[in-house]
């Protein structure tokens, strides 16, 4: 099992604890702006929780994801007729139910990007009541949610799709916040000179000082945006011009609230040759 830095291990442990405490009756959801390590932490935590990577099934929600793909749907068979096929949730639930001595996880990335009430269907209610069976829409077979199946998810709470989550859905979530984290940033960038990392930490601190109450949700990105940086030059220059600048200045949209703070604390944006060391 890979061991990460202290801060990263603490976040993974927080998610594992949430799964142990609430996985039997809620959807455990990691919430954070882009680049806060949600997918990374969720994957690592799911593997720790199950003890075996193959017992973690991953799926990513999107606008074309439907109830038929998730719970149950009709498919054409080879003879031109129809047959009922379990969706990814039901298939994994059946596997978990057939193997009650093991923990199973269904990891749902980008939870809010699908039409959740439609996609989840009965799962929305019965995730909380695992002893109560429900009948599926097409096959009319009784299903209970396996007690050893945990639904783990990630989402961006500032995305338009997340803002529309209603109270019934929110009530079924147990949310683990994943804000931008300076300690995880330092652990991720141990290969870079200390002065470079200090400058990046100053960037996040400046933004937090500007809006201390809303920082976690206002920040356009988290520490994970620097995950691919292998060297100060030219990676930090390229990252600015190919990604960060476009997140801060978007056409026909007011500039981001943190634009000035981030520009002032990002010296590498000026030239490929810029170095702080």
């Amino acid at each position, binding site marked *: 099992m890979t061991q990460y830095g202290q801060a990263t291990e603490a976040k993974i442990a927080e998610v594992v604890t949430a799964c142990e405490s609430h996985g039997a009756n809620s959807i455990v959801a990691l919430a954070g702006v882009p680049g806060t390590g949600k997918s990374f932490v969720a*994957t690592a935590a799911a593997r720790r929780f199950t003890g*075996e990577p*193959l017992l973690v099934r*991953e799926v990513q929600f999107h606008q074309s994801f439907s109830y038929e793909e998730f719970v149950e749907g009709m498919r054409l068979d080879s003879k031109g007729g129809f047959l009922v096929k379990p969706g990814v949730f039901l298939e994994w639930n059946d596997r978990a139910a*057939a193997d009650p001595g093991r923990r199973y996880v269904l990891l749902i990335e980008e939870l809010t990007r699908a039409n959740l009430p439609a996609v989840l269907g009965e799962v929305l209610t019965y995730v909380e009541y695992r002893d109560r069976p429900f009948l599926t829409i097409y096959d009319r077979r009784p299903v209970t949610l396996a007690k050893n199946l945990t639904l783990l998810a990630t989402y961006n709470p500032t995305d338009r799709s997340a803002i529309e989550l209603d109270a019934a859905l929110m009530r079924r979530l147990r949310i683990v916040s994943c804000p931008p984290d300076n300690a995880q940033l330092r652990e991720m960038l141990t290969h870079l000179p200390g002065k470079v990392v200090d400058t990046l930490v100053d960037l996040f601190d400046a933004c937090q000082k500007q809006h201390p109450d809303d920082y976690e949700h206002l920040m356009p990105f988290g520490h994970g945006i620097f995950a691919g940086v292998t060297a100060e030059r030219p990676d930090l220059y390229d990252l600015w011009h190919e990604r960060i600048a476009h997140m801060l200045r978007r056409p026909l949209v007011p500039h981001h609230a943190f634009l000035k703070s981030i520009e002032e604390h990002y010296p590498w944006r000026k030239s490929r040759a810029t170095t702080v060391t």
Partner: protein
Amino acid sequence: MTDGTETTWGGTLHSTFCLLPPRSESLFAYLGSDGLHRAAARGRLPFDRRRSSRAGEEEPDDRRRRDMRHICEWSGLAYEDETKTVRVTELGRAVLRWTRAPSPGAAPLINEGNALILGRHAAYALAACQLRNPTGAGEKYHPSMVVFPFAFIWRVMLASEGRLNSDELNRAVLRIRDESGIGECVERIAASRAASDVSLLGDSTLTGRTNDRLIAWMSLASFGWVLLRKKDRSGFYTIRPGAEEILRSAASIGYAHLEHATNAEFVAYLSSRAALPQEPR
């Protein structure tokens, strides 16, 4: 590029490959030999001196090691490199994790209820296996043989009521030379069954310890009896419940027929097709 002359599938006599109880203990001993020279791997294979047919021997016959190597190469689990060192692939390590007892007396992870989870990943790898390949047994085939043996076996079974018997395998399937032969094979099987006439399948391909060789093919195609069932009383191999969709999906992947330079490259390629989850960062 192989330059053999064989135009029908051959058959090996390797030991039974079985992942569910009773398991192939020799296989797990071999998979547990990652990084060891093949002589050391041979020494780890289970050996009962009292039952040995060779008086005075202290180690198993090297043929058992070669059998395990063959099974592992053709299913993407392990290979022996140019220094004769055993190298276990990612898929091989997954199999070992699932089949090894976590502590003495404890049950392994794999059981009848969850075996298809591992089976799905194995099916994606097996579907990429080519008859013509750089392993010893794969080098004898004519360049015109463009055969994915396990994918072809599954496709024939899926089109033949989900079952296949030894005669159908030996007389019809083992003659397929490329994808265009699958349809004709299915038709011959259907005609043979309708008329209850084995001769309509064609002549036998394998002779000499035929049953053992055919079982060897099917044990690999089933990934150690995870995807397919052993012969039933009527003599048919059948698809395990729940495995049909897995086999249909894996067999439909249009893998390109590749010219692998070494057996290491070939086996590593098979393992890479298994779609195993990667360690984050």
